[in-house]
């Protein structure tokens, strides 16, 4: 079972997890990213922009890599785009395997790599009317690189 999607609509994490529990699966790990209110509370909404076509290819590649690195029985990546308010879901990554370690590691890999290798950009619309683009975090590059053997593609 494999599912990769870029969409404006919300996703149903429970229904997605249920789809991953198939033959030979001993465990399903998942990560759900949620739009977090900024310190001080001034965030009205995020706007998520992406590169249509390229994004889907990048996510499919991450799923391929996870399925190569670990023995998975299933793999899901869903990323939302458009306007998202604090508390709303933004991203879902999940992996199923016979072995818990594989499911957990693959899920962490998917979300770490997605942060630096999929063409999404976030702008913050603040309650005071200000708007600004979120800057990339060096820590995310380091976390992604720590998995090793990642193509130098940024």
């Amino acid at each position, binding site marked *: 079972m494999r599912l990769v999607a870029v969409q404006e609509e919300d996703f149903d994490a429970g229904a997605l997890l249920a789809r991953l529990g198939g033959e030979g699966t001993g465990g399903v790990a998942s990560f759900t990213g949620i739009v977090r209110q900024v310190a001080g509370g001034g965030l009205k909404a995020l706007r998520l922009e992406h590169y249509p076509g390229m994004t889907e290819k990048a996510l499919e590649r991450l799923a391929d890599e996870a399925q190569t690195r670990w023995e998975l029985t299933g793999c899901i990546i869903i990323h939302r785009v458009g306007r998202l308010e604090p508390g709303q879901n933004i991203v879902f990554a999940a992996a199923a395997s016979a072995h818990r370690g594989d499911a957990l590691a693959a899920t962490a890999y998917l979300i770490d790599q*997605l942060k*630096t290798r*999929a063409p999404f950009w976030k702008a913050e619309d603040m309650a005071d009317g200000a708007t600004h683009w979120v800057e990339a975090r060096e820590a995310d590059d380091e976390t992604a690189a720590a998995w090793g053997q990642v193509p*130098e593609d940024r």
Partner: protein
Amino acid sequence: MRVLYFAWLRERIGKSSEELELPEEVDTPRALINWLRTLGPGYAAAFSDEKPVRCAIDQEFQPLDAPLGRPKEIGFFPPVTGG
């Protein structure tokens, strides 16, 4: 060639994509950036600093000094911030 702009590059240039005929001597993304700067103040503002500019040639991330070749499209954008 189709050239696409994302995030604040798109905002400064004022469009998300355009078809451009490039001079023959433009053989890398960096050379393309230098040429784009001459097209107007929006371009000059978008590309005033190359450091935060990333690119993809035919939807694959590439360094700014990669050979340009004859792609169908090239995208310029800041470092990605998804997830």
